[in-house]
């Protein structure tokens, strides 16, 4: 959580300094829910994060240097400059690179899990994250329905942050609680206070465990707010003041800090903060010094099969 927050704070200031190529979308306020998903998974599992999952990614094992390489345009990053920032992924590590079309990763993650089942690889779980807005897509419905039909070990984590970009949730769906949808799919679901790190660990841990044990897809709905705009280009002024000042608008990182103090771990917290700061600064420095993509070295081939490229591509 600390590394994610500091990394994103750094990215926000680099963005304002004009040093980032493309957009910056932060997960400020959503770190507890996201990280809990990453913590609950283990090696061999599959993680399909969305735009506010820096914390989950780092918890699942994505190297911080790959984060900075992508945002700062190093050619050594996992996407080599061909795609950027929140779209980064690393299939070898089990991190699916998201496409922008919301809900699309649900069926893709289900597909990975179906393949693992067919290959007789047992015990793997897939976890994908999205926001309340993404639940309005047909893709979300089709994906979750297929996963339920196939009884796949898929955990779908909905960060219900009350707004999809600027649209409040009463313009997004008419059901009282997104959790009610679980019943319609014939799957289990559990809600959680997304600002409470302990509760998130508990609920996500349980959901992943149930999926692993063969109980089929699990829906987790975390209630929280994003404590920033949709992207760094957005001031987020549309978020209602009352909501911001409510329990839902708590900063999970402050909750975490208080928790450590209450348990006499205040000094540890300070040490962790310092270590996280240092790690972020080092990653930024390293990535900044690395070479950028070179259009003359790019092969400009979108296909892999020999001969499948059009005549205007040099084989």
């Amino acid at each position, binding site marked *: 959580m600390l590394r994610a927050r500091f990394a994103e704070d750094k990215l926000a200031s680099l963005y304002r300094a004009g040093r980032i190529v493309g957009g910056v979308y932060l997960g400020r306020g959503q770190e507890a829910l996201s990280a809990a998903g990453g913590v609950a998974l283990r090696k061999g599992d599959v993680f399909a994060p969305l735009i506010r999952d820096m914390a989950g990614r780092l918890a699942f094992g994505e190297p911080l240097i790959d984060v900075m390489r992508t945002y700062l345009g190093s050619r050594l990053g996992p996407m080599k400059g061909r795609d950027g920032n929140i779209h980064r992924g690393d299939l*070898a590590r089990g991190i*699916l690179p998201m496409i922008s079309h919301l809900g699309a990763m649900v069926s893709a993650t289900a597909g990975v899990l179906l393949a693992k089942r067919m290959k007789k690889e047992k015990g793997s779980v897939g976890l994908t994250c999205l926001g309340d807005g993404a639940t309005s897509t047909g*893709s979300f419905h089709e994906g979750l329905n297929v996963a339920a039909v196939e009884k796949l070990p898929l955990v779908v984590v909905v960060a219900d942050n009350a707004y999809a970009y600027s649209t409040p949730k009463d313009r997004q769906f008419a059901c009282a609680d997104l959790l009610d949808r679980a019943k319609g799919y014939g799957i289990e679901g559990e809600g959680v206070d997304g600002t409470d790190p302990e509760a998130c660990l508990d609920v996500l841990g349980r959901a992943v465990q149930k999926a692993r044990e063969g109980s089929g897809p699990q829906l987790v709905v975390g209630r929280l707010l994003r404590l920033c705009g949709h992207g760094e280009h957005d001031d987020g002024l549309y978020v209602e003041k009352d909501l911001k000042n409510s329990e839902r608008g708590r900063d999970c990182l402050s909750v975490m800090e208080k928790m450590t103090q209450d348990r006499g771990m205040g000094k540890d917290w300070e040490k962790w903060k310092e270590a996280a700061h240092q790690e972020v600064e080092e990653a930024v420095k390293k990535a900044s010094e690395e070479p950028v993509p070179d259009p003359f070295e790019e092969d400009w081939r*979108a296909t892999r099969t020999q001969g*499948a490229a059009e005549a205007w591509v040099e084989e």
Partner: protein
Amino acid sequence: MSITYLDAIRAAQEKALQDDPSVFIYGQDVGKFGGAFKATKNLAEKYPGRVIDSPISEDAMVGLAVGAAMEGMKPVVEMQFADFSTVGLNQMLNHAATTYWRTGRPCPMVLRLPSGGTPGSGPFHSQSMETIYSHYPGLVVMTPATVEDAYSMLLEAIGMEDPVVFCEHKLLYYHLKAEALPSEAGPAFRAHVARPGRDVTCVAYSAMVHEALAAAEELAGEGHEIEVVDLRTVKPLDTDTILASVARTGRLLAVGESWPWGGASAEVVARVASEGFELLDAPPQRLNAKDTPIPYHPNLWAAHRPTAVRIAAALREVLRY
């Protein structure tokens, strides 16, 4: 024994299931029922757990295949009709087609599209989708016109490391027959001269190859030798074979069953105009379906699509110049 185009598609899938444990088939009613056109008949019984019925969820069908392909499987997705693949376009165009470019890892999957018009099928069960898929980078788009190609190209598609859109023509399913399945495949990504000639090059693909061959036969009676080029694969497009043919004939008619705005026939004309301008003795022409939804009634449908009669008329125009 005679083998239909549809038998060939079924046989290719059976061989792929037999030869490669990573192949599986996914689609609506493909399991015990054997598919809407019976292209997977008896395969679920023979290969348990590998011929899987999907819900009516085209987006999720393709999305699931993308995930499975990323995980090393080789899914073959059957759309009930090519027309319905529009619902899964996002996953195919934005997900499957971008995966190799974005990640450097292959996304080997085949999207089988029962394509093209048949009498009485109407606006939503008759479409040819190759134009849309070919526009997007990262996909191979195959349009086999013969029983032999339906078999060997489907096997080739399943063996590829890229996502392949396999446009099989419904009009050819039952009527087109061959004596036996081919033991050898035609060259990958190469067009084929289906009928040699020296007066006009008529480029066609899928069911239009047969209309073009019938038109060529008709014009032979009038003393004209039409060379018919079967593209076989529309993406990548085999420009070399087309240009070599135009070098022999000096005239070009490109035929496509899809709509006239853009598409394979437009691409053929564009490439011949820019790369083979000096070979031409007449302006290169194209013939496509009319620019309306595909009509339901057979009388209207027969006038909507290019037929041997319309192709013959267009060839006479090209010859007259």
